[in-house]
């Protein structure tokens, strides 16, 4: 990590993202924003508020409701000199731009023998917590981590959000940048202009000796809360925040798992085919003989998410679920 964190200033996740966009647009004329309601409305979740007024319509582009076009045109512009940041309002809507992201952006550099780069960022918002229902709440990061050529980022703190978004914009590859809808108001230490977090490096958010929890995005905070509760009972939990989901920093995971010998992989996405399976399998392959217990997953079940907030809440692992899972892991 480079750059500095401010001990005096706190900032919300939303404002940290806006700072990153603002600073990168200030620094590089080729950075443009495009998407639905990113300009006059300021973004459906208010991330780009004020940027149209600051940078004008040439650099902040309100598009029609055309997700495939948004990502496809961002790619075309990226291939000829732009560094576009496209916003897709909900992860669920990325399904409308799958060709553009998966068949096109991810393939451009390799398929064309390195002649073109695709330096675009696609910002998406995902996750539960607002009763947004079956088509506005899915956590689909696993699909995209499965596609070579894409980079996938899912930060948990304002400082990481800022530093990783800056890195994503400067990166020469297509980056899917995932923001959990529950994180936007969350406050944390502010990062200064020079704060850039390299892609592909996990971060140990809490050190511990008994159990490693591997997680990302909003669930980092649930893991940290559970770790705090468990520490009162003398259980020492290490929390690894993956931050970047493609490529996965398995070095950090294996280092932590090797020292604690017990691993819980925690995510909000449903279980089957989720990234937790990939991480668990790799830990098992690498450290089978050294582990004190089988790697355990704690995830949402394989279910269509209901809009009913109470039903939704029961389906997503919470602090209590994490505490119980860690105790279970310790007793096995």
């Amino acid at each position, binding site marked *: 990590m480079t750059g500095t964190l401010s001990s005096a200033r706190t900032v919300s996740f939303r404002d940290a993202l806006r700072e990153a966009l603002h600073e990168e647009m200030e620094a590089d004329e080729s950075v443009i924003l495009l998407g639905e309601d990113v300009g006059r409305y300021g973004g459906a979740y208010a991330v780009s508020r004020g940027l149209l007024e600051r940078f004008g319509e040439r650099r902040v582009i309100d598009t029609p409701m*055309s997700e495939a*076009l948004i990502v496809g045109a961002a790619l*075309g*512009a990226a291939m000829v000199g732009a560094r*576009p940041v496209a916003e897709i309002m909900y992860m669920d809507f990325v399904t409308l731009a799958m060709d553009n992201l998966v*068949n096109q952006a991810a393939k451009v550099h390799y398929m*064309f*023998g390195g002649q073109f780069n695709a*330096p675009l960022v696609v910002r998406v918002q995902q996750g539960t917590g607002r009763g947004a229902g079956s088509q506005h709440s899915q956590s689909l990061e696993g699909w995209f981590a499965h596609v070579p050529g894409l980079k996938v980022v899912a930060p948990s703190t304002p400082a990481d959000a800022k530093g990783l978004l800056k890195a994503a914009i400067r990166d020469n*590859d297509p980056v899917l940048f995932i923001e959990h809808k529950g994180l936007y108001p969350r406050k944390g230490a502010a990062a200064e202009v020079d704060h850039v977090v390299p892609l592909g490096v996990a971060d140990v958010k809490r050190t511990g000796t008994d159990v490693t929890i591997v997680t990302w995005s909003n669930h980092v905070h649930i893991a940290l809360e559970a770790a705090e509760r468990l520490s009162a009972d003398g259980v020492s939990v290490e929390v690894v925040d993956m931050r970047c989901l493609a490529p996965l920093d398995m070095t950090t995971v294996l280092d932590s798992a090797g020292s604690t010998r017990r691993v819980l992989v925690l995510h909000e996405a449903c279980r089957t085919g989720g990234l937790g399976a990939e991480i668990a399998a790799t830990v098992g392959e690498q450290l089978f003989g050294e582990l004190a217990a089988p790697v355990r997953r704690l995830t949402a079940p394989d279910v269509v998410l209901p809009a009913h907030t109470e039903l939704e809440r029961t389906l997503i692992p919470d602090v209590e679920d994490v505490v119980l899972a860690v105790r279970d892991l310790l007793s096995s």
Partner: protein
Amino acid sequence: MSVFDQDTRIVDVSTLVRLYRGMVRIRRAEERILELLLQNRLSSTMCHVSIGQEAVAVGVCDVLRPEDYVTSTHRGHGHFLARGGAMSALMAELMGRETGACRGRGSSMHLVDASIGHLGSNAIVGGHIPIATGAALWSSLTGQSRVAVSFFGDGATTEGIFHEAVNFAAVRGLPVVFVIENNHYAMSLPWERATAQPSVARKAEGYGIIGVDVDGQDVLAVREAADQAVSRARRGEGPTLLGVETYRFLGHSRGDPSTYRDREEEQRWHARDPLLLEKIRLSAAGVAGDVTESLEREIEAEIVAAMEFAEAGPIASVDEVFSDIYATPLGGDQ
């Protein structure tokens, strides 16, 4: 031949020869590519030729400037060559050589050349339409006069992305020309069963832009329509839908005997072979037969040299198969 006599008044003879030469170059290259395919000398089994459709690529590319952009389709050898792609890069690519257009990784459906603004042939029908649109967006945002051309088939017009891209280009007045290379069959589905509005000019009205229906077997007609569309785009007057009516003389790909097409229909179109029509026009313009014979010889020599270049090049190596997955590699990359 009065129509041709009339045409010769608006272009000089050297243009007629250049257009003819461009089409012969594509035809002969693709005839050779089909031979190579049958001999199992290509690195991939995927190969779609544009024989019968050469006037579209040649007529449109003839009016472009070096700084312009094109995107192309799975049936893209002609667009690549007409845009100025090297015969040697084409042959080396098809034969899986490191010296090919995509280092041997793309083969027939992914031809590309950044140095001539060729942003790639694409194997997803319609997948490249927004890429050309995005290139035009950047040209427009940065005050450049570059025009982007997207070649795609009639099949792509029934994909949702066609609507999204044309609508966006129209509402922003982007410098892009959408060339619908209508060969009348989306693989087996005839155009009249794919759309209730066969006129591209009429389709364009719905987007509030200019659309033109053009005879795609007449390279001069294509060139004239393209010239007007590209000029409009360059002047900042927005996109055009160019509906170019043509015909693929062979099947969709090697394994397609075209049983869904009527033989009489095929014969009618064969009689309007774009090379034949242009040769008649050259003759009417007084171009001697030795000129066309000589350009045939030059093209044959170019193809032979390209094949020798291809065969002399190193076969794309498995040692390199993991390189370039990312432009900015990370420590954790495989």
